[in-house]
């Protein structure tokens, strides 16, 4: 664990709330960004991040320091998001994802339809985001942790509390699905 994190945690446990504030500031953007991609919804991500930080504060005395603070925090966030979903029976996919499921419009990515390179990039990002959002929760989580967080399989397995083999298999299947959804984009790149 980062020594600076450990120090802040110790200070927090000694009653200094500002130390926890520092941890929040340090990790809020990273956590939120990953959650947005993993959950496919900004609202859910914000809710999960907030809940994760509060729970982390409450459970800080149970944090053993075996893993990094961020891994621990992310696990809390994911668990919190999952239980909230189960509780509220929310739809997994976002509106964007639903739109995506209806099919990608080929003309959107045709070069002639793209007035500028900036526009092209934005559209590409939108397509990728839609494709990600259309993945199942399990697949989306692993691919986001792998590609956005750059985590090792072992770390992902620890966070998602599943075997490494499952992580490997899910990443492969997530990639296969993404490949199907972004077939046109991949062809363009080739």
């Amino acid at each position, binding site marked *: 664990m980062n020594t600076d994190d450990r120090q802040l945690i110790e200070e927090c446990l000694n009653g200094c709330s500002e130390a926890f504030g520092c941890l929040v500031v340090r990790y809020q953007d990273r956590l939120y*960004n990953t959650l947005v991609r993993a959950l496919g919804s900004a609202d859910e991500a914000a809710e999960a991040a907030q809940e994760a930080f509060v729970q982390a504060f409450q459970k800080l005395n149970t944090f053993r320091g075996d893993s990094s603070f961020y891994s621990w925090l992310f696990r809390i966030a994911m668990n919190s998001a999952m239980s909230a979903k189960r509780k509220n029976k929310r739809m997994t996919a976002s509106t964007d994802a639903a739109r995506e499921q209806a099919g990608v419009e080929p003309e959107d990515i045709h070069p002639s339809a793209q007035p500028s390179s900036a526009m092209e990039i934005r559209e590409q990002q939108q397509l990728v985001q839609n494709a990600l959002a259309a993945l199942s929760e399990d697949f989306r989580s692993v691919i986001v942790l792998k590609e956005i967080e750059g985590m090792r399989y072992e770390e992902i397995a620890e966070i998602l509390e599943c075997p490494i083999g499952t992580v490997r298999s899910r990443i492969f299947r997530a990639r296969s699905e993404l490949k199907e959804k972004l077939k046109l984009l991949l062809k363009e790149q080739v």
Partner: protein
Amino acid sequence: MNDQEQKQLLSAYFDNEVTPEERAKVEDLLESSIDARQTLEEISQLAEFIRSLPKEAAPETLASTVMQQAEREMSLPLPSVANNASPSATNSKPFWLVWGGGLLATVAMLFVATRLFHVNESENNYTELTAMAKKSYADVTDELVLGKEASSLQPVIKSEESFGPLASNELKDFKALSLSNNSTAMSRFKSKKGGEGFNRWARNLNEGKESKPSSPANFRDINWDEVQIGSVLIYNDKSGGQIAVVEVTVVDVQKGLETMQMLLARNDIPKMARNQKIGLQKKVRRGKTFFENNGKQSKSKQTWDATKENADRIITQEEQKTAPRHPALFVETSKTQLAATLTALQKRELFIDLQPQFAQVASVDVKNQSANLMFSLQPQLKDKETSQTEKKRRKEIRNKVPSKEESTDNAPHKKSDLQKLLKKDAKPFLVQRINSYQMLVQMEKPGRSISEKDQNDYYRHIKEILPSLSDNVKESNKKFNQAKGQKKRKVKKDDEEEDDKKTSSQKNSPHKLYSAIPQNGLAINPLRRLRVSQSVRVLFVFSKKKNRVNAASKAPRK
């Protein structure tokens, strides 16, 4: 191995998560199969697509909401350290060590200052002082280590004049020390040799020796080579006819920045987003663009005021190289929010030197949260005559005052001739460089809407708080305003519509009024007077400027 297995293996191979045997298999496959190579290429492209997604910043209210909840939790019984908690050490470099790139940006310091006690200068008895400081040190250190404020103690907002400069290059050898391990830090600090004056005094205090130091050190006597993050420093500070023994804990700048962000969040002051189109950052970028163009004046009509000022002066390559780099936060906020934040800062005693200053942002490295800053009056110093006069004045001061050794031998300490002389020759802060932890304040569209009543109030306020405003200060301000008037006339060509308003309000510019405030620790009150602006930009600066000291604050040496 079927097709699916092959592809799964390729996926794991791409992630470098295969055994040596699997690697050999995959590499054989890649040599022989075009499809395998194609699959690997697609995996690579997919990864690139996902990584290229824009980074989403957390909602501005997240930190404040979390902290509000956390503070509510804090009012309940606190979580205690688990008995079996055994945080593992890490080999990784602390984040703040790699942050910022440059040495100054990474290991600049903040101080947590606590006034231990005050005595009248006439009662200046160092044996007594030492005994009191020793007692206070023992009483207060634990609280500081725990990060708590000594609630009964008043915050100390010190002026640069009383603290003296810090040379950033003297901070080179700082090593990370855990604040929570303050005693270790102190012992390391003490164990280094060569601790004269302050160092010896601090060592004696801690070792319990009843010694009478010949000269309790002041801030400028601290040997910064021996200071490390985590060090607890004790020194004398003389101001306002009183002597204060001040204890400061050195903390690292990253932690300071994070604390600052937390405080800002708590006061609902948003951090400037990278891609925010309106606000300081964009304007700062213009400043940067200008800076990179090395003095070419911008033709944009929407040029930022400070950028215009920048455009009127020539920033040389040398200046660019020697310009200080300061880790900084950029915020744009209302005066009420600002005042609340400043009050919180004051309460937390994060700064020994909390002073509003004017500076131009010459260039900014947003990624590293650092900025190069130029002071408004700097163009005057470029003038040969002014420059020579300044050099002459400094030389005279050096010749007049005794050496450091001589001055420290004069015991007991009184308000020395040196200090009197320096005070007499003190210049308004606009001619000084950033050489301490300062807060830079710039007003949005200065002077646009200032009312006569506000002006009068402001002048009255300044007269009240600064009865001893020296002629020297006034004269310098006059020069500054004249120079500024010249700049404004140049700017007229660029922006004719705004020019009339600016010219008419120039005389009454809050900048001018504000610039009349010398460095005497009056940080909060002036800010509260900034009623005329819609918003106030604040640049929090956490570092010290290398070798840029003014005559008023530098202890002259032979």
